[in-house]
């Protein structure tokens, strides 16, 4: 490496003082005012929505409904996590919903008609997702058809493909214990607590280790108070969630006991950790952001832009496959509507509400989970309020538009503030 030694003149570079928590908060406030709101709208929306529903319908706050929120929102959240990758590279995937349907149908067919073991079927479903992703990504990145058109075409085609797979509209029911358990069974309460403890310990450990390493190398590190605040928040929120989920929620506890963290929760957490690691700790993740931020700069830096785009589509479609498996598990069946109707819009909504930009280059996997929570709360709360499908669609449509509007305005604000 060629290090250019100091030029004559004042050689004072970036300030090296460790920022206090007050400074971190102020920097965050500045970013928000400048238009970079991140997950703030989703968090605020979640608080407002939960308060409104809790006041209007006390049933919203029961343990059973809380657990329902997770199983209801899981499939959409997982699909949204995959969509984040496609949105990050500045593309869109309108076919993710029906891609999840196709993969679920593959799962159902291999499981029932072919009678293969569950893990082979899950693998088949995910491989289907990968093939879909390679095809879509290839058409977008190599052939150069706009992703909007490619995935709109796929949206229609996959609808037909699901019909073919489930033989013109029959309903394939799934009886495999493992597959059904994914979205309907819970962890034993002790395992929920153990998982919680491991998560907190690992999170705190990583944060402390990183701060220590940076301090010893003389680099700016997060202050202890900020780390403590983050870990504290995780302990409070996670602990509360595990506690509530471990409460008895069976209507008739003497007959059947119903307690514990739904199995989808650790699945989503594992996916969150995996994809967050990929996005923020690997060169591949860095290149995803670069391609979304400035494709020409990425190209000049020698990044294979088209291959990165294909990879984003592959991740999106294979996550759609996982979402399809969860949906099939929850319904214990697959029919032509699996992954259809509002699934895609809810998933795009979840990603965008969480703070992922439709313009590319900005977003996190965690955003999809926050946005997915908003979507799940709306659907669940509206159901409790007794509103029909019509109102649900109207409200969710408006929320999606609102989120996209916030994104667009944030972008404008940022350019006005000189941040873009």
């Amino acid at each position, binding site marked *: 490496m*060629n*290090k250019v030694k100091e030029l004559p003149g004042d*050689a004072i570079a970036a300030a090296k003082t460790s920022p206090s928590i007050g400074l971190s908060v102020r920097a965050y406030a500045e970013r928000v005012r400048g238009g970079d709101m991140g997950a703030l709208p989703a968090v605020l929306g979640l608080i407002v929505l939960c308060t409104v529903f809790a006041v209007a319908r006390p049933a919203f706050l029961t343990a059973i409904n809380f657990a329902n929120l997770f199983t209801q929102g899981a499939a959409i959240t997982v699909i949204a996590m995959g969509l984040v990758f496609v949105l990050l590279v500045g593309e869109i995937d309108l076919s993710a919903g029906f891609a999840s349907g196709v993969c679920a149908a593959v799962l159902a067919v291999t499981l029932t008609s072919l009678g293969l073991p569950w893990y082979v079927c899950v693998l088949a479903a995910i491989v289907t997702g990968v093939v879909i992703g390679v095809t879509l990504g290839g058409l977008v990145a190599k052939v150069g058809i706009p992703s909007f058109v490619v995935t709109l075409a796929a949206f229609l085609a996959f609808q037909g493909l699901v019909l073919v797979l489930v033989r013109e509209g029959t309903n394939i029911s799934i009886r495999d214990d493992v597959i059904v358990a994914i979205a309907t069974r819970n962890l034993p309460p002790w395992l929920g607590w153990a998982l919680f403890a491991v998560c907190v310990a690992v999170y705190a450990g990583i944060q402390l280790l990183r701060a220590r390493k940076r301090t010893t190398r003389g680099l700016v590190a997060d202050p202890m108070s900020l780390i403590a605040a983050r870990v504290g928040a995780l302990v409070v929120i996670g602990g509360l969630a595990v506690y509530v989920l471990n409460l008895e929620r069976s209507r008739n506890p003497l007959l059947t006991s119903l307690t514990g963290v739904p199995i989808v929760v650790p699945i989503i957490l594992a996916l969150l950790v995996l994809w967050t690691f990929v996005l923020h700790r690997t060169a591949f993740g860095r290149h995803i952001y670069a391609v979304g931020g400035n494709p020409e*700069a*990425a190209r000049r830096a020698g990044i294979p832009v088209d291959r990165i785009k294909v990879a984003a589509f592959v991740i999106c479609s294979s996550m759609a496959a996982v979402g399809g498996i969860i949906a099939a598990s929850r319904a214990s069946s697959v029919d032509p509507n699996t992954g259809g109707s509002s699934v895609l819009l809810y998933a795009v909504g979840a990603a965008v509400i969480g703070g992922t930009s439709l313009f590319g280059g900005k977003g996190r996997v965690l955003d999809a989970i926050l946005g997915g929570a908003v979507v799940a709360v709306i659907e669940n709360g509206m159901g409790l309020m007794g509103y029909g499908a019509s109102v649900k669609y109207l409200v969710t449509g408006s929320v999606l538009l609102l989120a996209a509007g916030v994104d667009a305005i944030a972008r404008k604000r940022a350019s006005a503030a000189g941040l873009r």
Partner: protein
Amino acid sequence: MTPLLEVRGIDKSFGPVQVLHDVAFSANAGEVTALVGDNGAGKSTLVKCIGGIYPIDSGEILFDGKPVHVHGPRDAAALGIEIVYQDLALCDNLDIVQNMFLGRERRRGIMLDEAAMEEQAQETLTGLSVRTVKSIRQQVSSLSGGQRQTVAIAKAVLWNSKVVILDEPTAALGVAQTAQVLELVRRLADKGLAVVLISHNMNDVFAVSDRIAALYLGRMAAQVRTADVTHAQVVELITSGRSGDLGITQ
């Protein structure tokens, strides 16, 4: 002495428009070669051809006397050619360190080695006397034009390169910063690198360059030693392609 970087007979068209006509150009190790020409003369296009951004229609590129094929930016970087583009080509959504190492991130296993990259970026920026940047973890979108230009230059000198090409690197810089960049240009050449400087500022060109190459409407008008020509002659070469017995002969 064989030039470190030499191009011969470069033709380049964009559709029906031929932008470069049979261009020859060379840069010697240890020298600053100024590339001058009017707006639209083809300077940036020539640089992008050398950098592998545009494929050339015909002609050849020689590195250290040997013909090479540059099919993409990675090939150019592998040869040791670093380019600061006129439009900078930075990712707004990434921070300074991330931009400086883009495409060549340092890793440990599969993980990025953030600390090492940050240290090295800090060192390079300190060397360039960047005083106004609050933090090198700042997003590039929040930098001023001059700060962005400095980041782009820092990105190019970070690597152990043999040829550094700067396309109007001082266009957005203030007086002090410009002086510093010119000093850096001189120092890189003194260290044995071949430096190519594109500039419209004749004072800068005469201050640091050893040789001057003038492009006129996509043709190389002349490549001369700076000591052998006057200000006025270079201006004439730029504006009319010829000056006395120098330049394009019809």
